[in-house]
Every structure is written in structure tokens, then in C-alpha cells.
């Protein structure tokens, strides 16, 4: 792609990735959460692939990096679910504790980010998994279709 596209995408990528992480982090207060923020982040990676070409991106971001990120996201999620197994699986054991443990007043309230127990942590785990999963789908499809063009 031309120099204008590459320069603008270098400037924009910072805002896109930050917005994606913001949507992941505030999932328990505003619309959003793990999948939505991860999809925004992965579309930022797709912007980089379109602007710079999949071969150049593949030199830095390899597939096994994404595989490790995805597996660790899934294991954090299931580990948190096992954390409350003393009571019941998936029990919200962080409500009342210092980490994300405030209890909000019922009804309409200004949102407090330190509430909702294990839900923000599970949002982060799901966000990592979705970032890795969607980015590797876009990267591998871009690489495979460019090879098909080369073979023609």
C-alpha cells in the first residue's frame, strides 16, 4: 500500500487498540465486554495487515505467539471458574474482597469500576482469547490467499 495509507494507519492503530482495550475493561458497566473489545482489537490488526501486507506482518507476529496467548486466555478463564469450587463451580468468590469487590447500590448509579467480582477478570481472559483467535484467522487467511495468487 502507498505511503499515505501506511502513515495514517501508523497513527490510527494506537487509538484503535486503546479503544479495544477500553471496551474490554468496562464490560460490566457499559455495553461491551470480552468478545466485542477483542473484535475491535482484531480489526486493528486487520488494518495493519491490509496496510503493510501479510508477509511483512507475519515476519513479526508469528502463529505460535497467538497460540500461546489463546491457550493462556482460556486457562485463566477456567482457572477463575475453578476458583470458587469450594462452594460451587463459577461462584463469584471475589465479591466483598479488596480486588473488584465493591457492591454497587441497586437501581441507577454512576458506574464504579471496582465492582462485580470475577466478571472483569473473565472479560480480560475472554478478550485475550478473542484477540488471539480473530487475529490468527485474519492473518492465516491473508497469507493463504496471497499464496494462491502467487501460484496462479
Amino acid at each position: 500500500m502507498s505511503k499515505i495509507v501506511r502513515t495514517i494507519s501508523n497513527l490510527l492503530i494506537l487509538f484503535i487498540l486503546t479503544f479495544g482495550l477500553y471496551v474490554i475493561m468496562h464490560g460490566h458497566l457499559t455495553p461491551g465486554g470480552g468478545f466485542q473489545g477483542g473484535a475491535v482489537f482484531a480489526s486493528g490488526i486487520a488494518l495493519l495487515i491490509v496496510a503493510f501486507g501479510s508477509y511483512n506482518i507475519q515476519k513479526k507476529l508469528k502463529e505460535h505467539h497467538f497460540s500461546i496467548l489463546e491457550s493462556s486466555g482460556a486457562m485463566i478463564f477456567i482457572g477463575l471458574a475453578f476458583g470458587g469450587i469450594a462452594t460451587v463451580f463459577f461462584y463469584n468468590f471475589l465479591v466483598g474482597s479488596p480486588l473488584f469487590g465493591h457492591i454497587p447500590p441497586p437501581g441507577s448509579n454512576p458506574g464504579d469500576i471496582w465492582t462485580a467480582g470475577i466478571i472483569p477478570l473473565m472479560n480480560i481472559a475472554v478478550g485475550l482469547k478473542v484477540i488471539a483467535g480473530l487475529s490468527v484467522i485474519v492473518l492465516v487467511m491473508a497469507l493463504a490467499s496471497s499464496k494462491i495468487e502467487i501460484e496462479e
Partner: protein
Amino acid sequence: MTGTIFNIPFLAVAALVGIALYIIISQRNLIKLVMGITILESGVNLFLITLGYRAAGIAPIYTNAPEGVMVLPVPQALTLTSIVIGVATTALMLSMIMLTYRHTGDIDSEKSRRMKG
């Protein structure tokens, strides 16, 4: 939204599902088949969100919420799960079509099938 037959979102659902079923049955191009499945999925997701609407309702978010009846939040969670599953299914189908094209050089379903009987 008076509850008569002219409830526009439900008519849109019927149109989307009908068009999608016609595409899935009649198209031979594999990419168009995947598009038909995506349209069917959009129709079913729209159906799930529309059935939760309550008259003059607001979004079901408690942060700085105004006064009023909230629409049902459970169908929105069901729709979100369905969208995620749809992304995974579409990615899998498109990958299989790309590999089939590499083997047979054709994405017409009549010309690229090998198994009959």
C-alpha cells in the same frame, strides 16, 4: 409496534429467513452458499432481539440510567452468543472453501464434488 401484522421488525425477520432459505437451496457457488447461511443467522439474531422489546423501553444498563421500563436483557445475551458462534462457523466454512479451491480449481458445487452415491 401496535401488534398488528405490520410489525416491521418481524416482517424483516420473515423476509431475511425466506431469502436465506432460497439462497441455500438454489445457489451452486459455494461462497454464495456461505452468504446465505450468514443472512439466515442475521435473521434469527434479529428475531431474538425483537422479541425482547417492550413499548417505550430503554437500554438495560444501570450506569446513569434514566427512568423507564427496560427492554429484556436475556435475549441480548443469547444473540451475542449466537453472533460469536456464527463468526467461528463462517471462518471454518471459508477456510474449507479456500482449500477446496486449491485442490480442484473451482468453487462451483457441481464441478468440485467427488463423492456420489
